[in-house]
């Protein structure tokens, strides 16, 4: 391994919201393209050469080959620059890194995907993987968003609202800011669309806790509430997976920024994670 990055060409740039863009990329070297295998929940490091690197989750699914996708929110220096890039531009990519979700282990089970805001990005990878493979009992997507305009992959989410049930995919959406579009959606899909926060979406749902896994990704404040909801329903901590974010420079457990825990439990979010179970969180202080 080196810290070299490989040329990847931007095939398409799609504006998802005013803050997020979806980049579809492919490695320039076909050999690298062929070798690039990843799991939902893993991430890559994007390299804007001469300016810096930043980690981004893969939001596409390995079941669809030949390209990969990154959903990038504009928050600072590098991501702002990323947003100025166009189709045909080249960026450097290294990875994939991290453990990813244990997709194989979960086969045959029900998956509850709980996404808040940008947390939709890595979970979209899981969602499409699960749908494509057809190896999962039932898929729930609970998605909490601020407003209609902030819904990531809006077309896809609405499409699944409409037709998901046919694919055993049960989509629910909670929004915080009222708008005509939301009310329109709510009218069409109530009670699956409602005003509130993501935990409200658990209302009225029951799962076979012996055969269910929950996968969570969202802003730091969200985890505690969602986990409480799941534990109340007696889901075992080992069946709760969450993907976490920390500052990281290397992505491979060297640069030390993502170290969490105390004297009894030190973990690197990049290589021991970013996907952790709730057991990990219980034994590693400061993980969530």
């Amino acid at each position, binding site marked *: 391994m080196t810290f070299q990055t490989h040329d990847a060409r931007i095939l398409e740039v799609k504006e998802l919201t005013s803050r997020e863009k979806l980049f579809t990329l492919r490695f320039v070297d076909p050999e690298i393209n062929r070798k690039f295998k990843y799991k939902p929940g893993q991430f890559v490091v994007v390299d804007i050469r001469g*300016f810096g690197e930043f980690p981004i989750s893969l939001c596409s699914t390995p079941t669809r080959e030949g390209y990969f996708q990154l959903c990038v929110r504009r928050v600072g220096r590098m991501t702002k620059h990323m947003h100025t890039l166009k189709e045909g531009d080249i960026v450097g990519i290294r990875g994939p890194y991290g453990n990813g979700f244990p997709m194989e282990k979960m086969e045959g089970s029900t998956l509850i995907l709980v996404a808040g805001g940008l947390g939709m990005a890595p979970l979209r990878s899981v969602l499409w993987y699960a749908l494509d493979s057809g190896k999962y009992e039932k898929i729930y997507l609970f998605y909490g968003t601020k407003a209609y305009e902030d819904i990531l992959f809006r077309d896809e989410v609405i499409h699944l609202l409409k037709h998901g049930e046919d694919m055993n995919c049960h989509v629910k959406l909670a929004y915080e800011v009222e708008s005509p579009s939301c009310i329109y959606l709510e009218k069409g899909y109530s009670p699956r669309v409602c005003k509130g926060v993501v935990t409200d979406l658990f209302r009225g749902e029951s799962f076979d806790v012996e055969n269910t896994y929950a996968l969570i990704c969202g802003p730091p404040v969200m985890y505690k509430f969602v986990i409480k909801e799941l534990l109340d329903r007696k889901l075992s901590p080992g069946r709760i997976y969450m993907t976490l974010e920390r500052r990281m420079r290397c992505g491979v457990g060297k640069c030390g920024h993502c170290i969490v825990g105390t004297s009894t439990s030190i973990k690197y979010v990049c290589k021991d994670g970013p996907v952790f179970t709730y057991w990990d969180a219980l034994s590693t202080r400061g993980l969530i």
Partner: protein
Amino acid sequence: MMLKLGVFELTGCGGCALNILFLYEKLFDLLEFYEIKEFHMASSFREHDTLDVAIVTGSVSTQRDLNLLHYARNHSNYLIALGTCATHGDVQASVEGKIRDKLEKVYGTKANPMRALDSTPIVQHVAVDYALPGCPYDKDEIYQVLISLAKGIEPPTKDYPVCIECKLNEYECVLVKKEIPCLGPITLGGCNAACIKSGVGCIGCRGPLPKEANPASEFEILKELGYDEEYIRRKFKTFARGELRW
């Protein structure tokens, strides 16, 4: 396309403008991306034009400075406050007293025909897009900033105290080993620990480390070493007026 650059000098020692010339061949590198539209220390050429990047050095110490500053702000898209005069006020801003009293002490009269003002940093008067302190700033820093802007990306910022660079260079710690008052622990890094390289303590020319400096503890440490309170207090405020409070 070439970016239009202007360098404006308010009241100061001229070092921040001069330091740009000290980039030598790197200055010519920058000219691959920038046209200089205003830089009175270096050129008689001047074109009143909207600038992509304006660099303002010096502090606001006269009405003329203030007018020039507003001109620069109103005619530029991206304004860089360059040097401690511009970002924190530097030494002239730490002179206490009202302007007319100061004038009287020095010129013998309270009259103020040239409309001098109490020195203040430019950040106090206009919004700045980027602030780069240092008396003078490290010239490679402005080079990196201008290259970044030329290539369309926000310039990076520093977030660590002088101590970090001091150690990276493996300079002997003068505070610990020689009991010399050194403001390194509470001063924003970026100078490559120039003072400690000379075996003397950091005098704080880059201003306080934002947010996380612990001046109270530094104060106690220096007091412990036998420096009197007034001395330490003055040392703290030399470059950044009263910003180091606790």
